């Protein structure tokens, strides 16, 4: 399967000492919905920004649809949509103005009618100013723009952070429905594992600029088990201790002893705590 997004030995340093990304190797197949999880400062936003060409890699390569966005922004941007953390729109412009703005630059590739209809379905009038939109409505405007652009890749940088549970749920429902319809690749950066679980079929856990774990969610869950500390035996491949005292372990073919299937949250917490990549 062709990769929609790749990082090959990707590193990004700010200033002389602060490394945001350290030698990342990631390959995201087309059509996946990827959850990008990590603590603050893990490098999630930086990674998304390198894929849209906002950040220049210090070393290594970031590839979006096979192109280097930093060098080839003109060919990459028309195929990519990016929704920034707390989407910031022009306060004095209306919903319609924003859609006109996108249509002005994206031309016929932008389906303004579809975007307008989506906002209308949400009960947001075309003449509503961006400054009057709630967090959820602003996020939905971002999604409407992203899907109106018929982008092949959609990068969502913590768009859910400031939303209430209902707005988050509505956002994810729209995201899932549209991704299913369009077949686009999406990366959703979030702190909220339950949102990732509902929206994504693939997971990347980042910590301190390095990949802790990456793969299809179902496969990652199948490859791990959670066992009580008292039942650990020599040879168990322990990832880390979970907050409740149990241990997250990797399954091995020759070690198929019983244990409970980890929840996605266990997997994420386990690898964030471990701070090391699986072997």
């Amino acid at each position, binding site marked *: 399967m062709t990769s929609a997004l790749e990082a090959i030995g990707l590193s990004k340093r700010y200033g002389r000492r602060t490394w945001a990304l350290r030698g990342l190797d990631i390959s995201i197949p087309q059509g996946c919905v990827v959850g990008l999880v990590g603590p603050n400062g893990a490098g999630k936003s930086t990674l998304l*920004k390198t894929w*849209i060409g*906002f*950040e*220049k890699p210090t070393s290594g390569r970031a590839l979006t649809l096979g192109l280097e966005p930093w060098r080839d*922004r*003109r060919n990459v*941007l*028309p195929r*990519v*949509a*990016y929704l*920034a953390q*707390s*989407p*910031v*729109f*022009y306060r*004095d*412009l209306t919903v319609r*103005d924003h859609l*006109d*703005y*996108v*249509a*002005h*630059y*994206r031309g016929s590739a932008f389906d303004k009618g579809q975007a307008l209809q989506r906002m209308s379905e949400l009960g947001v009038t075309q003449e509503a100013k961006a400054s009057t939109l709630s967090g959820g409505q602003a996020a939905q405007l971002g999604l409407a*723009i992203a899907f109106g652009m018929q982008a092949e890749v959609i990068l969502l940088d913590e768009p859910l952070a400031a939303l209430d549970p209902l707005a988050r749920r509505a956002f994810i429902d729209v995201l899932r429905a549209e991704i299913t319809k369009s077949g686009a690749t999406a990366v959703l950066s979030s702190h909220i594992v339950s949102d990732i679980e509902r929206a994504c079929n693939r997971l990347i856990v980042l910590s301190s600029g390095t990949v802790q774990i990456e793969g299809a969610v179902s496969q990652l869950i199948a490859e791990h088990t959670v066992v009580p500390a008292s039942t650990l035996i020599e040879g168990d491949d322990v990832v880390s201790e979970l907050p409740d005292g149990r241990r997250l372990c990797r399954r091995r073919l020759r070690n198929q002893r019983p244990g409970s299937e980890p929840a996605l949250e266990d997997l994420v917490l386990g690898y964030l705590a471990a701070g090391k990549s699986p072997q």
Partner: protein
Amino acid sequence: MTGLRIWWRLHRAPIAILVVASIVCGLFGIAYAENIRCDASLSATDCSQFLIYNPPSSIFTLALAVLPILLGVVLGISTVGSELESGTAAFAWSIVGSRRRWLAEQAVASWVSILVLGMLCGGFNALIVAKLNPGHNLPTSFVGYGLWGPILVVRGLSAYGISLAIGAMLRRVTASVALGLVLVTAATIAALVVGRSFETSQVLASNDPGIYDALGVGSGIPGPNGTFQTWDDCVLTEPLGLDGDARNAWPLEHCREVSSYLPGSKMVDVELRESAVLALLGLLGFGAVLALVGSRRP
């Protein structure tokens, strides 16, 4: 047209305020000028002093001269600097394929609005200066120099280029406005000085009719090689052998202070030179941002 409409919606408030301010200042200035005149026997320098230091005329004419510069600073900083500060650049730059095209569209719209306001202010001030100074042919006179005409447009455009660069570099509106005003003022003064340089001044007699259109640029006691000298140096050149009344009269006659002027016919040359300096500074600012905008992190 869509791009222009949206640009207008984003920037209409400061433009509308400054246009209204210019119309108010212009109309009041003209009404005031109808009732008062600069004395026709005053030189250009004296009339300029009158224009600047006479309170009502100074408020209107100086405000009209400054408004295009203010618009240049406001639009220059809001084009990139405020987009970076507010975070809207992330939205805009993820939409546009070419940031240079985006910047060019913003700049052209800004240039047009500065041009319109500059012409409005320059036109109003030309009327006011002409009404206050009847009998002067303004294009060949330094009367009201720098207060009227196309130089106001050039100053506004230069302020735009400089402020654009400052906003793009600092990414903070308040700091950019403060630094922008300082640097634009410095650039305007520097251009004013350069504009007057390279021209040879002339000593004009007080009864020379050209003195009324000329610009005073210096004063002193003429020396033997055409430069000015001090009183003491002049007295030292007193011939030997004088005594009594002749000795007392000699320095009064030979060490008299005179003023040097740029004749009014040089006005266009001076203004063109000043405009060239301002245009160069503005273009440098714009060129720097054109080169910088592609690599700026939103």
